[in-house]
């Protein structure tokens, strides 16, 4: 059984190919053309694994760019794919917190890894990767640096949830000579609060897994643990869980 899962996100496109017991994975920037990124991911997976295109029984596509992609056998939402991917790696997980570039979600899993309920942020960017991206720019840092630079002991509360207000708030904090490390810790706390509130409305059952691009940020993990008062496990190679779930679904369904 050979299946491909492609997760076309707003920033990066991830691909996983499963051939029997072997897993192959690729990641590349989505750029301005999600459809082309999807095709490129498939081509790279084929080259990496040495599998021929006609040897692939099914391609499942997910992620923000899924609707634009034209040669998938099945389109599945990232919610279902994440659930599938995570529960494959960690069957004991019951709550997934996924923070990506554009949105954040909380997914509740049943005992067989099925989606029982989910919540997703509304229109605004608070509590998403975009929020951190904007703040990193305002601080003159790369978003990937934030997690290492923060210092929770110097935490300065950032009260605004709204991206626009928070941006001017931290510019003000900086101007008053406050340390970056503390401001960043405050930003992480703000994201954690926001997402934890969404999770609590649905009910948080252990074990809690943390996925999505922002899961690489240690500071947000710390903040989530403090807000939820439980340990949060960062999923290994968490950027790929959506694509992995899609690939597993592809293997399961075959051509439809």
């Amino acid at each position: 059984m050979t299946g491909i899962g492609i997760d076309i996100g707003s920033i990066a496109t991830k691909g996983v190919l499963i051939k029997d017991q072997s897993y192959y994975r690729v990641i590349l920037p989505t750029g301005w053309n999600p459809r082309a990124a999807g095709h490129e991911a498939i081509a790279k997976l084929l080259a990496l694994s040495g599998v021929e295109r006609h040897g692939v029984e099914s391609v499942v596509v997910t992620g923000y760019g899924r609707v634009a992609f034209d040669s998938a056998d099945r389109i599945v939402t990232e919610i279902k794919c994440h659930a599938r991917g995570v529960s494959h790696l960690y069957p004991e997980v019951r709550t997934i917190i996924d923070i990506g570039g554009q949105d954040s979600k909380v997914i509740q899993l049943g005992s067989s890894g099925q989606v029982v309920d989910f919540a997703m942020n509304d229109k605004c960017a608070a509590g998403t990767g975009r929020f951190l991206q904007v703040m990193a720019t305002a601080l003159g840092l790369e978003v990937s640096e934030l997690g290492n630079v923060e210092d929770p002991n110097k935490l300065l509360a950032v009260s605004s949830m709204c991206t626009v207000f928070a941006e001017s708030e931290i510019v003000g904090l900086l101007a008053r000579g406050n340390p970056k490390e503390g401001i960043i810790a405050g930003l992480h706390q703000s994201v954690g609060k926001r997402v934890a509130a969404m999770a609590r409305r649905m009910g948080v059952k252990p074990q809690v897994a943390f996925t999505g691009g922002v899961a690489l940020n240690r500071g947000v993990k710390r903040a989530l643990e403090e807000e939820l008062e439980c340990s949060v496990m960062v999923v290994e190679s968490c950027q790929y869980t959506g694509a992995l779930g899609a690939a597993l679904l592809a293997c399961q369904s075959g051509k439809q």
Partner: protein
Amino acid sequence: MADYREMWSNLDMDLEKHDVLCQVLPEVFGEVYLSQQKRPRGMDFYDFVVSEIHGVRPAELIEHQKSGGKVFGTFCVYVPDEIVFAAGGIATGLCGGSQFWVAAGEKVLPPNTCPLIKASVGARLDKTCPFFRIADMFVGETTCDGKKKAWEILASEVPMHVIDIPQMKRAQDVNAFEREIHSFIKVVEDFTGSKISADSLGESIKLINNKRKALQRLYEARKAAAVPISGKDALLVTQIAFYDDPSRCAQMANQLSEELEERISRKEGVFPEDTLRIMISGTPMAIPNWKLHHIVETSGAAVVVEESCTGTRYFENLVDETAPTLERQVRALAERYMKTNCACFTPNSARIDDILRLAEEYKVDGIIDTNLQFCNLYSTESHLVKQALAEKNIPVLHLETDYSEQDFEQLRTRVQAFLEMLRE
């Protein structure tokens, strides 16, 4: 391609701004509506109305005014149209459903106001909707706080009458509403200069009941296992019912229903077999707000019923036609209108009963309970709706959205994930 520019400039409309709206509508209607497959032929009329949306009906209303008639603009299904028609007036719905008007409303309203109110105020202030220019009198009502204050802003533009809608449903509240209808009669009589009699009110009660019956018949057809009409098309019929001539509305809806009934007898549906059946409940969707229906129906599910004011709340329950005197007719009106279950009332448990009943009647697989952003009433009530549905094991997804397109992909993901859950 009639040229209505002269009519519009006589109405003192801002032609340049209005033109921007005219540009977008054909494209959106083409993609959202005309791309659908197997549409009933009876939708021709509604496609026609949309194509001439700011032309044909406004021209009719102006004709009516030229012969001395008055036009009343309304914003809520609690306003008894019967009174207006009994005095020889025409009532037309004015609720704004266009994103295009929101910015103009935001100039005077707080940002955390619901888009329906923003669009309604904006349409008037920006001079971009002929209906808002034509109406001689606006009829507001004391439902939500946002609307109550909006009336005060609009009152500086147009003669405004506000109907006091009770907030509870005890016997004394029905009595109070009955008195309100009497005062409304007085206002309408003074404004039109014509007296309302038991005869004329009896006529208009029948007129509006017939419209309701026709829409009920249409919705009845949507209960069929093979749905003979898309949710988008049915929504359009209800949306247009708000401002079309009531007897033509009844005639067209009956004609369409006839076609749907034939389809049912042939077991001919617009969607593949075992398509998921979805109910949408919550706040109204004024024309041209088709966003949520479009998402659901391009994600492999069918909307089979709307528990909303652009749905069952508009036409369920008839007014008793046998009341012999004006007094008794007004009583009958009060009783009928007070059966409508809007979140403005407390408690409003009858709405939850409605949702449960409709879920059964229309055999829905899941419910999307939705409210316009910043509608406190419906978003608070959604908690109770969710609770009641959980007890009955009916899956529900709550969505809050506005008229803009920014959250389209987000909503689509949520709706599709919900549908995936239903399929599992």
